């Protein structure tokens, strides 16, 4: 038995798992229309490679990856591209995104698909393949998988962790996947293991999923490589990558570093399964298992094609029952409200919950923070959430940063336990977005300044070089005596040249200090000004102590 290394805090939640585990993973009938967003993850959106009117086949690439953090997207079925347009997407911001709309032709014909010889191919080639097949993490963060398969500077990544913890209430897609597709999942793990050079493979599963544990243990027994199935105590958020790493290895992922620095890489079990389909069968990521649960007549899990409109997915579970008050995408702890059910399933969507008021009552009114510290006791990141709240509310973002706001994983434990019912995580999201926006602003203006300075420098340099060249030429000619001394035209030319040389010399004097020496002082001044502003704010706050701005 592997020793379990508990993490700090966490909360016990009502599980609501059995609602959706009564039936096997269901298959959806073919829909007349799919809407495939080109941006399904952090990083750069894919670039559309089809246009309205194009015929596409299932599995055909319709969006090409671009940049480092990017993956491809593919057609979920065969048909005709009817539009490439902005469409509502499932995103916390409730905004629209660029989507490829495909009208299916009903034939569901596929492109030629074949697996690759991943054991013998160059790892870089396999990674390119993974990227072209659109693989991204299915656990929630949807990070492009190809990048996570790189070893970085390390010779190898010794420990591969498969995350089957699924700690959020209601969600059961990983549970069902492990029950039904344990073999294939471990085959995917074998590929990951090979690419990373891992020797230890651990699968962490919360102990409230005995059937998944049994199925995976059985598959592990048959697997041609050593893999340990570890039951971890059911305690939210054991499925956080850092928490699971701690649980299984006792290692803490240093803040701001990749887990590979401590020799660990974590993949969701669903990602491993997709890896198998991709490398063994050549199938791109065009579907995933999604839990449909809550206030619907037949809650369960469905293999849903990417691009399936969520209302069609809900319909597969019988549709919303009367009294449905809305939908959550993801789990109740970290999910978000769905604004528009026309939004499609994307790789990030693991669950949709139809809400009813008895199970999801409106949030109790927030009372003042009484500094009881229950949030700190619950926080798996070992933060002081009430301090973060305090400074986020006061818009003292510098202080929130000093209290390590960016170590917050937005798990919601603090909000969950707060006796004053303060929507703490909302404040953290707000503070983070403000800080990011500010940094982007600063970066943009810095870049603009540099661009401007460089352009001035370049123009001056070009002018100077041109003048110098011209002068050079003229001097040579004058010296060679090709032009008569008394030629007025030549004299005039010479005068002009002389002036140009002088101008160039002057320009040199003027430009040099401006463009090189002055560059860093300008930046320095800007930095100083920002620093001064930053200093001023926290000092004010410190002087007044706990600021009396809140309700009594």
């Amino acid at each position: 038995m592997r020793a379990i290394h508990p993490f700090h805090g966490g909360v016990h939640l009502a599980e609501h798992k059995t609602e959706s585990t009564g039936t096997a993973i269901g298959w959806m009938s073919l829909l007349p229309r799919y809407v495939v967003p080109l941006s399904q993850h952090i990083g750069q959106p894919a670039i559309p490679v089809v246009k309205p009117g194009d015929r596409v086949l299932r599995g055909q690439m319709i969006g090409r990856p671009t940049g480092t953090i990017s993956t491809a997207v593919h057609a979920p079925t065969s048909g005709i591209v009817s539009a490439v347009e902005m469409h509502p997407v499932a995103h916390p911001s409730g905004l629209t995104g660029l989507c490829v709309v495909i009208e299916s032709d009903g034939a569901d014909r596929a492109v030629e698909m074949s697996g690759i010889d991943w054991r013998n191919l160059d790892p870089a080639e396999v990674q390119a393949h993974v990227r072209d097949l659109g693989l991204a993490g299915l656990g929630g963060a949807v990070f492009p998988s190809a990048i996570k398969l790189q070893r970085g500077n390390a010779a190898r990544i010794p420990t591969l962790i498969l995350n089957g913890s699924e700690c959020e209430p209601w969600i059961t897609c990983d549970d069902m996947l492990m029950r039904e597709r344990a073999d294939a999942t471990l085959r995917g793990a074998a590929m990951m293991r090979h690419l990373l050079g891992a020797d230890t493979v651990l699968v962490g599963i919360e102990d409230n999923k005995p059937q998944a544990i049994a199925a995976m243990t059985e598959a592990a027994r048959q697997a041609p490589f050593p893999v340990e199935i570890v039951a971890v105590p059911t305690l939210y958020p054991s499925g956080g990558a850092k928490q699971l790493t701690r649980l299984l290895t006792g290692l803490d992922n240093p803040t701001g570093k990749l887990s590979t620095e401590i020799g660990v890489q974590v993949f969701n079990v669903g990602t491993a399964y997709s890896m198998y389909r991709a490398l063994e069968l050549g199938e791109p990521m065009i579907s995933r298992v999604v839990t449909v649960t809550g206030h619907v007549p037949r809650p369960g899990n469905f293999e849903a094609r990417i691009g399936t409109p969520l209302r069609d997915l809900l319909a597969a579970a019988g549709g919303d029952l009367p009294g449905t008050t809305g939908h959550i995408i993801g789990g109740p702890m970290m999910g978000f409200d769905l604004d528009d059910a026309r939004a499609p399933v994307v790789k990030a969507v693991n669950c949709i919950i139809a809400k009813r008021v008895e199970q999801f009552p409106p949030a109790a009114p927030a009372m003042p923070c009484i500094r009881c510290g229950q949030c700190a006791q619950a926080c798996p990141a070992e933060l002081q959430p009430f301090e973060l709240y305090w400074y986020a509310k006061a818009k003292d973002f510098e202080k929130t940063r000093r209290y390590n706001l960016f170590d917050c994983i937005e798990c919601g434990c603090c909000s969950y336990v707060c006796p004053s019912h303060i929507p703490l995580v909302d404040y953290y999201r707000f503070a983070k977005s403000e800080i990011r926006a500010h940094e982007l602003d600063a970066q943009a203006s810095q870049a603009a300044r540099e661009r401007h300075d460089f352009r001035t420098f370049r123009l001056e340099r070009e002018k100077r070089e041109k003048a110098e060249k011209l002068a050079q030429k003229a001097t040579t000619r004058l010296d060679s005596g090709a032009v008569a001394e008394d030629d007025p035209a030549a004299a005039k030319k010479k005068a002009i040249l002389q002036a140009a040389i002088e101008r160039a010399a002057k320009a040199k004097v003027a430009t040099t200090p401006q463009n090189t020496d002055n560059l860093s002082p300008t930046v320095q001044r800007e930095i100083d000004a920002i620093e001064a502003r930053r200093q001023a704010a926290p000092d004010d706050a410190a002087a007044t102590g706990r600021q009396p701005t809140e309700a009594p």
Partner: protein
Amino acid sequence: MNGSPYTQSANNSVRITMIKVLVALIPGIAAHAWFFGPGIWVSLIVCSLIAIFYESLALVMRGYPQKPFLSDGSVIVTAWLFALSVPTLAPIWLYAVGLLFAVLVAKHLYGGLGQNPFNPAMVGYAVLIVSFPTYMTQWPAPLQLATHMPSLANAVDMVFAGSGSISIDAYTLATPLDTLKTLGRAGQSGTEIFNQPIFGLIAGKGGEWVAAAYLLGGLLLLGNRVFTWHVPIAYLASVALTATLVQAIDPSQHANAWFHLFSGGVMLGAFFIATDPVSGSTTPLGKLIFAGVAGFITVMIRDYGGYPDGVAFSILLMNIAAPFIDTYTQPRVFGHAKGGKVGK
């Protein structure tokens, strides 16, 4: 708009916490009534009503809704802690003055619930002991020693009319801490002092049992995770240690650790006052420092200071230091090398 999480733990609110605290105080109150007479009920009710009045007034003046803030129960906790810290059966104006400072000044002038740097009940107590020291020594005697036991009717009389049909001397007596201080100053030896009838098994007659009942209530709260162990344990340990050291230096004049633990406000302070999260330290190490130093100051005031008890002053002093202590005792954040001072 509220984002996730979309669920909150049930049975958890400021109000429920406050009710737990009130329930945990009941054993101590009951012991008090048993050993010192039913007058405590009168002062608890009177103090609660005055405090609610002030709270309501403050809410009106500050433009806040009455219902959510009155029903959070925090002002009742303040009222009870105050009532249990000042002499029972004092005239009503004394309560009114003390609670004025507790509720209006210490709580609402600083911004209300969650914002007060000082424990409101202790501010009320401190104002009274500084301004009206004589009234503050008139504690009822334990029943076995009282020549006349005031009935409930007497108690109402005394609280509302300022005096009753019986003379003050008939039912009050210097507390053990007072006795220790005055007789010690008069040069009596420890043995002589502790032979006074006011002393019981280990501390004051009756009072030691009340303290034991507070301890019981406090342990209930601890078991219920209303607070962590750090503050009460550090406070009591520090009181015991300091008392033992002081006694080792000069055994003739000073009481032992047991006496200190079970007399005056130490038990009430350890579990119900120093644990006040709003005015105390919030980090684990900070709590240990906060309570440890408070315990030390408590005994120092008792043994060498001008006031018989030091619980209130020690906690108020540490209230000042709490934000500072917190800044320097931040726990290690997950994935960071170490904690300590708030980061740069």
